[in-house]
Structure formats: C-alpha cells, structure tokens
C-alpha cells in the first residue's frame, strides 16, 4: 500500500495552516491576565475555566490561580469552576482582571473531555461519563495502572489476570456485547487512539479477540498489553465514555466505550516546577489452597517405595502415619508426611518501585511538562522482573493570537524478563506447583531438578508437568518493547467563534521477544538425533504502526437564548503490523540459544494492514443553558470489508435538561438536577481481520522430500467475502442529582444496547473443512443500570466522611445467532482441559457447558457396571460466566489533613469452570477426593438397570472422570467475590513546611491493595486470578499465579 496517500493529509493541513496564518492580522487582539481566588479565604484557585463568551477560546488557571489569554476587542470573559458561581466580566480596555469566585452550590459547571478531545461542560452531556482524577491512579497504584481502578467506576469491570506484573488487564464497560469477538474499549491519549493489542495467554480457540499468541508450544506467558506503557504520573485526568453515544464520534473501535486519557501539557505555576513522586509496594503471594493432607504422594493407594517414582503429581497414595517413609528420586528416603505451604515456599515476595521526576513550566504563551520515570517490578516468580522507563513531554504554545499548537510525545522502554508461563502444562510453574503431590519436599524437588546427565529429573509420569525448579532455572524469555506514541495538534482560530484544528498522531512500537520454548533436557520433549541436543528456541520481532490524521472544524454561536455549537471533521486511520519470527529445534552447542545453532528451522513473516476512513459531524443546540440537544453522524469506510459493505453511516442524538435551573421555584435542598437521554448507533469491523474475505494460500517454510507443501494459509476459519460491519444501537436514560448542598449526589443511568449483525466466529463441523466460520449474524442485548452515589454523612471543619457507592447491574442476552430459534447455539471457546463456552439464543451470554452426572428421572445419579458415574448424553449448561453485579464501596475519612480510605469491591452473579480444581480433583488433592480412599468409592445412585449401585469404583479412577469422561460438574463454581480492594492512608505535610523551604508540597501515603477476600465461593483459588484475557474463554479458569497483596507507600513532593 502506498504510505504516501496517508501522509498526504498532514501536508494538506500544514499548507492550510500557513495560508490561514497569513490572515491572522485581520482581527484585533488584546492580551489579558490575572489571578482567580476563592472569595472566602483568598486562596488561589487552580483549574478555573476562563473563556471568551460566545466562543471556544479560553484557558484555565494554573496552580497559583493565574491565567493569561488573548481576547478580541469588546470581549466578555466567563470565569467558571466546579462548585463555584461563575462570573462574567467585560474586558473593555483592561489588561489585568483579578477576580474572586464564591463557592456555590448551584453552579456546577464541571468540564469534561469528550470524544475527539473536545471539552464540554458536563451539564450539557446527554450521556454517562466518569471522570477519574489523577490521584486515583497514582496514589495507590498497580504495575498496570488501570488495575487500580477496579471497583471505582460504575459500570466498568477491570480484571488483572494473575499473570505477572506486566500482564494484560481486561477492561469491560457495560459488559460485553460481541458474541465471539472483541469487547475492548478504545484507548485514546490526548484525542488520538493508541494501540492496546494484548499478548495475553490464550490456549484453546480464543479466536478473534485481538490477542497474539506465541509459537511452538511451551510458552504460555502473558506478554502484556498497550496500556502498560503509560506512566500514571503523566496523566492529568481520565474520562471514561461508557455508552455508544459518548463514543459515537470515535466510531468503529468505540462500540465498547472509550478511555480518554489526557496527559499533562503544562505546569502549574510560573518558572520551572519540579515534582517528585516515589511509590514502593511489597507484594505478598496469597495462598487460597485448602487441599487434603491426609493421604500423600502415590497412585492407586500406594506410596512410592522404590527409586525413581513418577507419581510426583498424584496424591492418591497412602494415609499418613507417623514414622512412614517414602523413596523419591534416585533412592532418597524421606519421611512420608504432609508438606504444607507450597505457595509461600516457592514464590518470593514481589515489589514495585516507581520514581517519577517531572519538570514543568507555564508562561503567558504556553508551557510544558517533561517527566522521567522508572518502574522496577519484581515478580513473585523468582526470576521474573519488569522494568519500564518512560519519558513524556507534553507542551502547548500560542504562536500568535490565533495560532496555537500543542502536543505530547511519550517514549517508553519496557523490559519484561521471564514473564511466567501459566494455565497450560509444559513449563507452567503454577500448574505443576498447584498439583504437586502433597508430600513432596520442595527443597528435594529443587535439589533434584537435574539428573546425572544434566537433564530434567523425571518426577512425574505426566512429563508435561515440568519440575517448576527446572523451569525456573532453564527457561528464559525476554521481551523488550520500545514505543513512541504521541501527537501534535495545531489549532487556528478563524473567527472568534470558529476554529480549525489539525492533528497527526502516531503509535509506533517494536517488540523483540525471544524464548526457549523447551529448554534442552526438558523431560517432555523427544531426544535429538545423534550429534544434537534437544530443545526449542524462538526469536521474533514485531513492528507496529498506527497513524491517525484528523481535522476538525468547530464553531459556537449564540442567538439570544439559543446556542449553537458544531463540529465537522474527518479521520484517516492506517495500521500496519509486521512479524519476523524464527523457531528452531535442537542444537549443536548445548546452552547456546540462537537461531543459528538450530537443526530444524522454521521461519515466519507476517504482515497485516488495515485502514479506516471517516467523516463526522456534530451539532448541539442549547436553550437558556438548561436544555441541550446534541446530534452526531459519522460515516466509516473499512478496508477489511468488501466494497459493497464497507461504508456505514451511523447517527446519535442526545439531550439533557437541567431542571434545577429551569424553574424559578425549586426546593432549596435540590442543589442540582439533570435528566438526560441518548440514542446512538455505532458500526464496527473490529472482529474482522484483514484478508478474511478470501482463501489465501501459502507454502510451508520447509520442503518435504524436496518438494513444496502448500495449503490455505494456516487458517482454520472459513473466509467470508460478504461480511458487513456489525452495528450497535444503544439507548440510555440518566439522572443526576445533588441534594442538600451536595452532601448527597447521585448519578444513575439505565441503558439498553442492541448489537446487531454481529460478526460471529461460529464453531462448525470439522467435516466442513474448517473449524470456525465468520458470519454476519447474531444479535445481543445488554441491559443494565449503573449508579454512583456520593454521600457526605459528616462534615465539620476538621472532619469529613465521604461515602461513595457505585454499582452496576448488567445482563447480556443472546437474541439470535444464525436464526432466533431459542436454544440455537455456537461454541466460542473451549477450556484447555474440558468444558466449553457457548452463546445460546435466549440465554445470557457466556454459558458454560460441559458434561454432567447422568441422572435418572428421579434425579438419582447413575453409575456404570464398574461403579464409575455415567455422564449426560449431551453437554449441559451451568450458567453464565459473566458477572451481573459489579461495583465498589469506598469510605474516605479526612481529619485535619489525615486521609484514610478503604474500598470494598465485588463481582457477583457469574459461574466459573475451575481448571485448578479440575486438576486438584484428578490428582487427589481436592478434599472431595477423600471420599472412598479406603476400598473405593461407592457412588450413591442407581445403575443402568435402575437398581441401587453396589459397585465400588477405585478411588483414583472415580475422581479421574473429570478428565476421562470430561465430566466437569464437580468443578463448576459460583465465581463471585467480595474483597477489600484498597486501603489508603495519607497525610499532607505541606502546612508544616517553612515558608522558604524548597519543598512546596509534601504528601505521604501508606497504601495497600488486594487486601482481604471477604467472601468467595470457589475452592482453592482467588476467583480474580484467571489467566485468560479472551472473552471467548471467560469463566474457563486455568491455574494462574497466585494473586498478591501489596503494601507500600507513596511519596509526592513538589519543589
């Protein structure tokens, strides 16, 4: 593809800007500055909006309450600030206006950043947004900053996945709507989207979830996502646009909401300001296992008594008796006794240490913010570390009275060393460790990780359960990512009420990754031919580029009581990713892991390109500043779809009515009241990969018998040239109330979202030639409500108690698939062991299916002639894996500068299939396997003839049915939980600092995260530790790393 075409637009903008700059002298301009203070205590007010009336020209005050602005003749300035009464001042011939604002309960002109980076007064919005202040991200932080928001935003469900410090986090806004595809919100930094591709762990047929797997087996680590490149200290504010209306202007990728991040582009005070933030937390792994410790290692009731036993993953041995011994490895005799605390013994305490220094400045013309940050994370797996260095520069400048520009550039260097493998078998430390026989001494397991030949000492006949100490010492993985993203935006005020803005943003990263899938000597791989040693090694490098170019024309006019705002714009998005990868097997020189040293070489080159072009516009009408109606339209063209289907136009309309200000007589307790309503449509191609319109062929990298081997390019998905964009239509109603001088405030919304024409990856018969097909079909409905309630139960000069409750209920129903026949279903994902995830017409989305115990008409369990349970004829449903309730309760206490807050969060109403318990059952660790240890299990029920079952089944065979018969009923659980998520205690020392002390601001906080699990239903694990980022594997738990409790401090100083 011609890149030139995509670079053309910036040039056009540049030319246009030059042309327009020449006309700047046409309008007379004055410069005005001043200070804004609080009328009560004369303290400066930062962040006050100063706008030329009837225009979008404006600024906001810095940390010292100063502002500086160019204004036309005869301008009137409007000063407004949240919680304060606004003031309008006619400039006349003044050059300095100092004013004070009074706290007011009536004026709540909060400004939020909306789509395309447009700032709007919150009261105008006809849809739900949530604004997060920077403290929530920085004070009590997590390595991937977004995880610290779990439980804080109504309607937003965030999960860390238990995959290590650099792991992916999963964000779902108002549930998931796509039946088998992506539900990730769009991440936007300063108005321009950035990439959030995730490299999460996805065995099974995770399909189109935008995650990227690894090659060659043996590696199931989580390689992280795009958000982890962001240093939270650079964030000024973050807004979540929840519904389709909010996102309508972002189009296709915003069907699942948008996270709008605004980074700092300016200091807060004259001269150079320096601030320093240091954050340290210590991570303690949490052990939730409650295994049986009555019977030890062994199989079929026999403990190991001869050398080289291979029952190291089975606890179906003998009952522990004092004085018993067992023989392990090469004739080592040790006591046959329980070994407790495997989790704490194996894993170390992790830590996170982040230091950020920022330099910033603000002047009459603009300012900048430059920050350097270093984050060092030590994972709980002893060889896992993650280091991130970021440099962020944000700047804004007024070149002339009419022309200004701003921009930001973010560079990050991330080194993720040995991200741990999880969930699968080979080299997955958690899988092997959680299933280790309960009498295996860990120090012996470590001492005997190698045999005499220096290879893995086989301790389990299940050789895929690699000795975790062997994995720790022999397997490595390095992931280094360099990333630059940023954008520059030029704004030109054509007229006092009209500006044009051009923006170019690019997100570019390169990612080098190498790993030895199977280290030399690992027991689960075959020996190499003579002259070689076995092993597999992969080296790959990826490059990714996304360029967004947009132009926006924005105007505002007022006619009497009526106001009119409009925006017209266009965007070109181009994305390309490249992959070079070489996998080699077997080596000449032992321990030399390079692709040159390999015997068998398998190279891959991959290239993917896509583009979306869009035009959009919005118009907003207001009446007396109490009634607002906003309409938008956007047309997208998708490169991935066929010419007939690639263009789609979709509209939105929303309105808000500030009834508290509309009438003359409102009760005094009603501080603020607003009703809002919105309807929006969004189209999307996000579930269609490039080139899925056709069957493409490739040639295998290696010849066979001297001849090429070809075939349709690795795809198991049947191509479909007739795909159309999917469409989401969402209706929402909202109510905002502030009562009793804002002591009570409520923001509530109900919504109904219909996602139609879904691009569904449906499982089809292998006999069709493919495993899945993409079809345009399927309709789902998300219905729910969300609410945020803020209470200030106590407010005295010295003490304030803030109580914030947020909660959301979401239910997603599948309305149709190929047809709307109830019961029709598709399988979207299969568990790595047994069981699957289905979408079923008429049922909630994300149904867990699997075989259960066969029961007769009276509900009695049925058993075979061998006493083993019979399984159901068909897979049966165990309910939805998607949480219906999600939320948090935060209590915050302020006493004379001491702040204490704690957050309790919950997710409820979801089922899970626990892979950890699946293994614990078949390996004899789960307490349920204590039944029948002596003499076999006598199943209570009937045989095939209807007679009472009298046949005892051997205990190991009986419990192994979870595997052998795929009978998963015993390991299905309610996946909900209640947790004390965060505790933060802080004290602001600023008032003790001497006047001339170089430090102007000093705050120290003690923080704790993931503190305590109040209630859960699943055995042996934290339901939060999950493994997979894919929605096609939601509820399909497979052993991840134990979750951690982090405790530490945050120090913030400004100079």
């Amino acid at each position, binding site marked *: *593809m011609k890149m030139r*075409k995509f670079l053309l*637009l910036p040039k056009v903008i540049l030319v246009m800007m030059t*042309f327009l700059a020449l006309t700047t002298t046409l309008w007379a301009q004055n410069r005005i500055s001043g200070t804004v203070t609080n009328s009560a205590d004369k303290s400066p007010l930062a962040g006050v909006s100063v706008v030329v009336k009837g225009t979008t020209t404006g600024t906001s005050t810095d940390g010292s309450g100063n502002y500086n602005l160019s204004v036309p003749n005869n301008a009137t300035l409007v000063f407004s600030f949240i919680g304060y009464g606004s003031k309008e001042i006619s400039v006349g011939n003044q050059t300095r206006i100092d004013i004070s604002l009074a706290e007011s309960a009536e004026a709540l002109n909060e400004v939020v950043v909306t789509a395309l980076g447009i700032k709007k007064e919150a009261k105008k919005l006809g849809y739900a947004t949530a604004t997060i202040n920077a403290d929530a991200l920085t004070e009590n932080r997590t390595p991937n900053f977004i995880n610290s928001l779990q439980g804080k935003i109504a309607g937003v469900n965030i999960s860390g996945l238990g995959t290590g410090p650099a792991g992916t986090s999963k964000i779902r806004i108002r549930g998931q709507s796509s039946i088998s595809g992506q539900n990730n919100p769009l991440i936007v930094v300063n108005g321009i989207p950035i990439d959030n591709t995730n490299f999460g762990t996805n065995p099974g047929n995770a399909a189109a979830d935008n995650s990227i797997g690894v090659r060659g087996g043996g590696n199931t680590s989580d390689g992280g996502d795009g958000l982890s490149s962001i240093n939270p200290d650079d964030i000024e504010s973050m807004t979540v646009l929840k519904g389709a209306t909010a996102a309508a202007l972002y189009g296709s990728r915003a069907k699942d909401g948008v996270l709008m991040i605004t980074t700092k582009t300016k200091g807060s005070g004259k001269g150079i300001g320096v601030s320093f933030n240091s954050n340290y937390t210590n991570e303690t792994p949490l052990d939730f296992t409650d295994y049986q410790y009555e019977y030890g290692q062994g199989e*079929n009731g*026999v403990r190991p008594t001869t*050398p*080289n036993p*291979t029952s190291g993953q089975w606890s179906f041995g003998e009952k522990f008796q004092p004085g018993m011994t067992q023989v392990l490895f090469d004739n080592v005799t040790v006591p046959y006794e329980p070994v407790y605390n495997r989790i704490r013994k194996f894993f170390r305490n992790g830590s996170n240490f982040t230091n950020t220094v920022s330099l910033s400045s603000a002047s009459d013309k603009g300012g900048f913010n430059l920050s350097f940050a270093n984050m060092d994370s030590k994972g709980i797996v002893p060889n896992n570390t993650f280091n991130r260095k970021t440099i962020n520069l944000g700047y804004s400048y007024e070149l002339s009275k009419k022309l200004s520009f701003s921009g930001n550039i973010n560079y990050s260097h991330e080194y993720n060393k040995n991200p741990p493998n999880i969930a699968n078998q080979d080299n997955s430390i958690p899988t092997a460790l959680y299933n280790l026989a309960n009498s295996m001494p860990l120090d012996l397991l470590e001492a005997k990780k190698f*045999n005499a030949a220096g290879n893995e000492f*086989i301790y389990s*006949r299940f050789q895929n359960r690699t000795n975790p100490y062997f994995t720790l010492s022999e397997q490595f993985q390095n992931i280094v990512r360099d990333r630059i993203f940023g954008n520059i935006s030029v704004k030109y005020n054509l*007229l006092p009420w009209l500006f044009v803005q051009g923006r170019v943003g690019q997100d570019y990263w390169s990612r080098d990754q190498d790993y030895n899938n199977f280290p030399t000597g690992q027991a*689960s*791989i*075959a020996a190499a031919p003579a002259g070689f040693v076995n092993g597999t090694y992969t080296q790959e490098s990826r490059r990714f580029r996304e360029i967004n170019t947009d132009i926006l*024309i924005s105007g505002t006019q007022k006619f009497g009581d009526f106001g009119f705002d409009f925006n*017209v714009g*266009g965007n070109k998005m181009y994305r390309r990713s490249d992959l070079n990868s070489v996998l080699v097997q077997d080596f000449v020189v032992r321990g030399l892991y390079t692709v040159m040293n390999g015997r*068998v070489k398998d190279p891959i080159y991959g290239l993917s390109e896509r583009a979306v072009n*869009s*035009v959009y516009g919005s118009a907003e009408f207001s009446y007396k500043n109490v009634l607002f109606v906003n309409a938008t339209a956007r047309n997208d*063209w998708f*490169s*991935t779809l066929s*010419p007939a289907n*690639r*263009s789609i136009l979709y509209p939105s309309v929303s309105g808000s009515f500030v009834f508290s200000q509309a009438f003359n007589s409102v009760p005094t307790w009603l501080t603020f009241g607003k009703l809002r309503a919105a309807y929006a449509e969004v189209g999307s191609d996000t579930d269609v990969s490039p080139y899925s319109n056709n069957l*493409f062929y*490739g*040639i295998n990298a*290696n010849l*066979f018998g001297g*001849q090429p081997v*070809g*075939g*349709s390019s690795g795809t198991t998905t049947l*191509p479909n040239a007739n795909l159309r964009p999917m469409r989401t239509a969402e209706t929402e109603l909202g109510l905002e109330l502030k009562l009793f001088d804002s002591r009570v405030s409520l923001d509530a919304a109900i919504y109904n979202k219909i996602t139609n024409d879904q691009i569904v990856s*449906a*499982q*089809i*018969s*292998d*006999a*069709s*030639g*493919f*495993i899945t*097909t993409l079809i345009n079909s399927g309709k789902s409905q998300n219905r729910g409500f969300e609410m945020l309630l803020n209470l200030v139960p106590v407010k005295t000069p010295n003490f304030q108690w803030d109580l914030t409750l947020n909660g959301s209920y979401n239910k997603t129903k599948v309305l149709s698939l190929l047809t709307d026949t109830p019961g029709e279903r598709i399988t979207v994902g299969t568990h790595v062991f047994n069981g*699957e995830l*289905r979408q079923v017409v008429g049922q909630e989305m994300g149904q867990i299916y699997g075989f259960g115990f066969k029961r007769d008409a009276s509900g009695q369990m049925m058993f075979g002639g*061998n*006493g*083993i349970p019979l399984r159901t004829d*068909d*897979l049966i449903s165990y309910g939805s894996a998607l949480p219906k309730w999600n939320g948090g309760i935060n209590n915050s206490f302020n006493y004379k500068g001491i702040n204490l807050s704690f957050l309790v969060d919950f997710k409820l109403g979801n089922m899970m299939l626990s892979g950890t318990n699946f293994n614990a059952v078949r390996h004899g660790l789960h307490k349920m396997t204590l039944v029948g240890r002596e003499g076999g299990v006598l199943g209570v029920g009937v045989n095939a003839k209807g007679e009472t079952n009298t046949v005892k089944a051997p205990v190991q*065979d009986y419990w*192994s049915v979870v595997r*052998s018969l*795929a009978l998963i009923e015993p390991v299905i659980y309610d996946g909900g939980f209640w947790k004390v998520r965060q505790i933060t205690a802080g004290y602001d020392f600023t008032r003790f600092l001497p006047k001339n002390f170089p430090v102007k601001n000093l705050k120290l906080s003690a923080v704790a995260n993931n503190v305590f699990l109040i209630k859960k239903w699943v055995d042996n694990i934290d339901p939060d530790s999950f493994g997979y980022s894919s929605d096609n594997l939601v509820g399909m738990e497979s052993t991840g790393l134990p979750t951690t409790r982090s405790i530490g401090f945050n120090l913030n100083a400004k100079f």
Partner: protein
Amino acid sequence: MKRILKKSALLLPLWAVTVVGMVSCDQGFDELNINKTAALSVNPVFILNNATVNSAFTTGSVIYEMGIVQQMVSPNSGVLTGANFNQDSRDNTVQNWQKYYRNVIRNSQDVINQTQSVTTRSNLYNMARIIQANAYMILTDSYGDIPYADAEKGYTNQIFLPKYDTQQAVYAGIIKELTEATAALDATKAIESADVLYAGNIALWKKYGNSLLLRAGMRLSKVDAAQAQQVVAKALQSGVMESNADNAIIKHDANYVNGIGNMLNATEAANIYLAAPFVDYLKKTNDPRLKSIAVRYVGAKSGPEQVASRASTDPAVQIGMPLGFDNNTISAEVTKNKLASFYDFTQVDRTRMVKMTAPSFLITAAQTQLLLAEAAQRNWVTGTSAETYYNRGVRLHMEQMALFDANSAVAAADIDAYLKANPYVAATALEQINTQYWVASFLNGPEAFANFRRSGFPKLAPNPFPGKSIKGEFIKRLTYPNSEISANTVHVKEAIARQGADDLDTKVWWDK
C-alpha cells in the same frame, strides 16, 4: 453578520479539502486488503502434498486402535486412557476425525475442486481422489456413519454442518472413486513430478489406487460377499502392489516428523509398552521381526533408567506387558516376571522402528498380498495360489523391516527359515493369513483394527481390565467428537438413531 459571512467564505477551501479528502474514502482499500504474504492460488500439486504428508497416522491410534488389537498398551491413565482400560476418552477418539477431515480431506478436496475441469491436470485430479478415498476409509472404519456427500463444502457451498451418510453409502462412494480414478490415470497426460508420494509415477499410483480398492473390497467380505468378490477381482485385474517399491510411504524427515515416533520419544517414552499377546505370538513362532521391532531396557526401575546401556533387542529376553492392569495392579505381573518394574517390559524400539523420522506406511505390498491370499483362499480370485500370495506377503513384510531402519533389517536366510518352520496350512488359512496381516499392519492402527473386526483374527482374549465401560468383549468403533455433538447436533443424532448408540460397542455396518 456580513463580515461573518465573508469570513465564512474563506472556509470554502477548507470545506473543499475536507470533502474531497473524504469522498473517495475507500480509495486503495481493495488493494490494501490483499494479503501480500500469501497467494490467491498455488500449484495444486503442492496442496496434494499437504494432504499426503498428513495422511500419516495419529498418536490417538496408539492409544485406541493399536491397543484394541493388543499390540501396544499402557498401564497409565489420564491422557493415555483408551483401549488399555476399555474406556471412552474422547480426547483420543477425536484424533482421526480432526486430522483426516481438517487436513487430508480438506486439502485433497481443494485439489479436486481446482482440477476437476482442468483436462491438462487430470492425473493430479485422480491422485487427489485416491488420497481422499484412503482418508474416508479410515474415517468410516473408525466411526461408521460420517459426513461424506456434504463434507468439505463449507467454502464452496456454505455447508457448515454436513449431514452424515451411512457407511454403506460411504463405501459405495469410495469404491466408485477408486475405480474411476485409477482407470483415468494416464501416463500420456501431464506427469505430476512434484508429488511426494510417487513423484507422479502413474504405474505406482495405479497400484496404490487398486490396492486400496482391494482393501475396500475385502472389507465388505462379511456384509456383502458378492460385492466384495467383484471389487477384489476388479482390483487385482487392474494391478496391485507386488513389491516394497510399490508401497505408499510417507518418508518423514526432521521437519515433517513421524507423529507416533515423536510421541514415543517424548512425553510417552516410558509409558507405552508392547502388549504381551503381540510379543508372545512373535516369540512363539520364532519370528525374526521381533528383533527388528522390540527393545527391553533390562532392569529399568523407572523411565529415566531406560538408557542405551540397558537396551536389549535379544528376542529371548523380550517380555510383553500383559493387558488388564493399571500402574498399581501391574506390580504383581512385574514380580511374576521377575522384572525390576513395569519400565522393564518390552517396548517398540524408539531408536529404530519408531524413531522420529521413521516412515509411515499407508498401504503396503505385504498387506496387499496377504489380502489376496485370503481372496484366493475364498476362491474369489484365481491364477495364483493362496499359499503363494501368503508367502509373498510374509516375505515382503519381513523385507519391509529394513525400510524402517537399516538396523531392523531381516536377513533373507531368516525369512526362509521362518517360512519353512511356519508353513501355510490351508485348513487354518484364514486365521493364519489374518494373523500375519495383523503383524504386517503393526503401526498402522486403523487398518489393524478394521481387519481384526472384519476377520475376527488374530484370536485375542478380551482385555480383562476390571471396570471396563464396554458391554461386549472388544471395542467395536470409536466415538464421535464432542465438537460434533456440540456443533452438528442434529446430524450426529440422525446418525446415532440409524446406526446405534454413540459408544465403543456399536458395530459399524460392514461388521454387523
């Protein structure tokens, strides 16, 4: 206001740029959506190579088919649960289904679609039909009724959930395809020299097709002797495999390894053993092939102790693992045989016959000649005596040992001695022939299983494992994949209603 309008006029170029820039909004998109690292077509012979190389047997066949015919066994459960415990483990029964439909049939059908109306590539078209017939035979022999007429039409006809055809209909199709394809192969037409099976050699392809036809014909001996006889005679008349140079072999290499060899050299190296009935039969008849096939790591107390210094290929020391035991109950047998542990039982030699690059034999001259021996014994074919066919078959298989590995070669004198000591006996010919066929089909699980069901030979004692989940004495078919039950429910249920329960007991049509 006038001024505003005037200024607004200045915006016109801006509007123009916006509109022009965006109107041709999908310019270049068609080009962009073409995969630059893949092609819209490749020479179909390379796709046939894909089907061919994927025709090699699955690792699941070790766990089921080779276990059912009592050539290999594992005392361990879990992923190895299968014929050893007479249990249904769908992780393993699924393997033939997935491999043959997803790879062999899909790719061969692609070749058929691309070449059926291309007269210059008629040979390639007919080769693809033969490769496909081979795969369908394995599938229907495994499961009974399977998708056939509607299969592989996902892309061409949008049939995502194909209906199942009766095994009778599938066999009719296979026989028709093989008959037509072998007849249509024509040495005067373009030769497909890039073919990895026979380098496009028409004579060899004809023999391959006819030998498969013979196999298909013999399969019907129980259910429809008349048709069987007719098909067998037709196949013989058209020319079948007579020497080991005719064999259909996948010659695995470092990149395209033998899947079974890989399994038996890696995770399951110490978990799978030669079964006692197989070892005992070879021992009893002083069969020189035992030395070619077997190894015992004498005195090994564990998997890790199975090292070269303990390896013995001496036929005299070989002890096959008895059937019916798990890794606990086997200990009595270990003691009885004075072994160090169950790791001390005889295994197939993973450094020779099942090394990672050992060839896979899809169909051999030895098997073909033995089938002809039975046909001659039944008087279905004339001209050559059953004894001659039998002796040829046994000799060919013994000679075939060298093709696995030079160290497995059987000396000519040993072959002569064996045939002399174990002469053809007309009275027990069917047992003798089919027991030899059992040996000749070692490592070809699907064929050994099918012929055991058809002929009833060798005479094996049922696996005595306690708590089996089958009602009969032997497993009679494999079960359908969970994925079919889940996705193609209606059609799989039709097949079950027609054929019988989806379990290991239901007999397939030709086995009734």
